[in-house]
């Protein structure tokens, strides 16, 4: 399973409809070990949906998705086990409202991985330290700022020691002054070699951190490129239009 040639995430010809809306059109995308892939595109382009199909929070109509070469299992214990190895960070943080920050980070390692209480706690404290919210550990989510909540949510995902992390617009719900602190944590993760698939609107961050940019529009991947080429001379007309619409703002 540690074969470095097998992509960690491998999406093959995925198609999906929401009723009449064709949200994913023949998507093929792979993310290799240690790679940081950033998906950008206009809203409604299907990038969040794609991100959510990878741990089957959304199903696909046809095609297949493999994690380390293994197809995603259908609903059940095997799917839960697979999900536990892929970290996910949401736009709206989604911390458990009735637990303290520390309990949030300890819960899944204890319940899902049956890890020893003391070890789970120590690791959680290390992770909270790493994302800079250790001093908030005994508060409940509602007492934290959005940026702090999102960093705690990243710690919660990391506590499962995931093979890859999915970020679904992690800074879109944050006040501008809090975006930086979350992006800093993500940049550090990328530097540590974490395999990451990131949906974001933060273009400077994408340019700095991505190994590869995937540009989506109307449910299809329009362009896959290096960050430098994508932002300096995109190959596709739609990518050019998208980037210039951002500059006009």
């Amino acid at each position, binding site marked *: 399973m540690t074969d470095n040639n097998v992509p960690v995430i491998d999406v093959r010809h995925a198609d999906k409809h929401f009723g009449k809306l064709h949200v994913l059109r023949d998507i093929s995308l792979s993310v290799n070990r240690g790679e940081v892939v950033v998906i950008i595109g206009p809203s409604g382009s299907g990038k969040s949906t794609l991100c959510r199909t990878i*741990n089957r*929070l959304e199903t696909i109509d046809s095609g297949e998705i493999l994690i380390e070469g293994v197809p995603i299992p259908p*609903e059940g*214990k095997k799917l*839960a*086990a*697979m*999900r*536990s*190895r*892929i*970290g*996910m960070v*949401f736009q*709206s*943080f*989604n*911390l*458990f*409202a*009735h637990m303290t920050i520390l309990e949030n980070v300890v*819960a*899944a390692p204890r*319940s*899902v991985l049956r890890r020893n209480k003391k070890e789970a706690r120590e690791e959680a404290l290390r992770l909270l330290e790493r994302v800079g919210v250790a001093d908030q550990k005994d508060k*409940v*989510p*509602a*007492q934290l700022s959005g940026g702090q909540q999102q960093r705690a*949510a990243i710690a*919660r*995902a990391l506590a*499962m020691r995931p093979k890859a992390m999915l970020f679904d617009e992690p800074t879109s719900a944050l006040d501008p002054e809090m975006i930086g602190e979350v992006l800093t944590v993500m940049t550090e993760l990328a530097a540590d070699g974490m395999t990451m698939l990131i949906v974001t609107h933060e273009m400077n961050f994408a340019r700095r951190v991505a190994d590869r940019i995937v540009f989506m529009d109307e449910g299809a991947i329009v362009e896959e490129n290096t960050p430098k080429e994508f932002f300096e001379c995109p190959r596709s007309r739609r990518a050019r239009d998208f980037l210039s619409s951002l500059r006009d703002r």
Partner: protein
Amino acid sequence: MSISALLDKYGSLYLQAMLTTWRLTVISFAGAMLIGLIVTVIRVCPIRPLRHLGDFYVQIFRNIPGAAMLILLVYALPYLKLNFPYETCVLIATVMIPSAFCSEHLMSGMNTISPGQIEAARALGFTFFQMILRIVIPQALRSAVLPLTNLLVATMLTTSLASQVPLRPRDLTGIVSYINTRDVGGVAAFAISAALYCFTGLALGRLGGWIDRKVRILR
């Protein structure tokens, strides 16, 4: 008879009746919570026919009058060769009916949980039961303390069904009929029971309010 004369003569019986009502209330509410929790889990489980079964249970027991159910239990079940003691019949009614209401309160408690938290739990690899136990039930319970307090008081009042069968020792309602068939207690005999119901209900209300403040979830 005056209230003080009644208390002189029947004070210890009233006390015993109050303790009986308390005992029936505790057993009924504990049973109702347990069954209510189980029914609620069934009503949100991934298997559709089971969900319908859970909904059906709630519709049946939410809509059946307690007295009608008690009559069925006491007079109809013996035809099926099921002879339960009177107290068991009363308790079946005072558990099943409040359990349906309990489930409804827990369902509305669940609705306070943001869908995102459920997605997060699934994304972390929680199985259905792990998620129910660690995420859903704790939040549903903590959000439903006040309605459940209501239910506890209502359950206590429902235990007055015990007065309709020859239960010994008598409950707070049963004791009134007992006294009024022996003495001329009149309204005063009722008033004492009413005061004891009231006292218990107020105390439970205070307790519920206190628990709610302790466990309420900040959002």
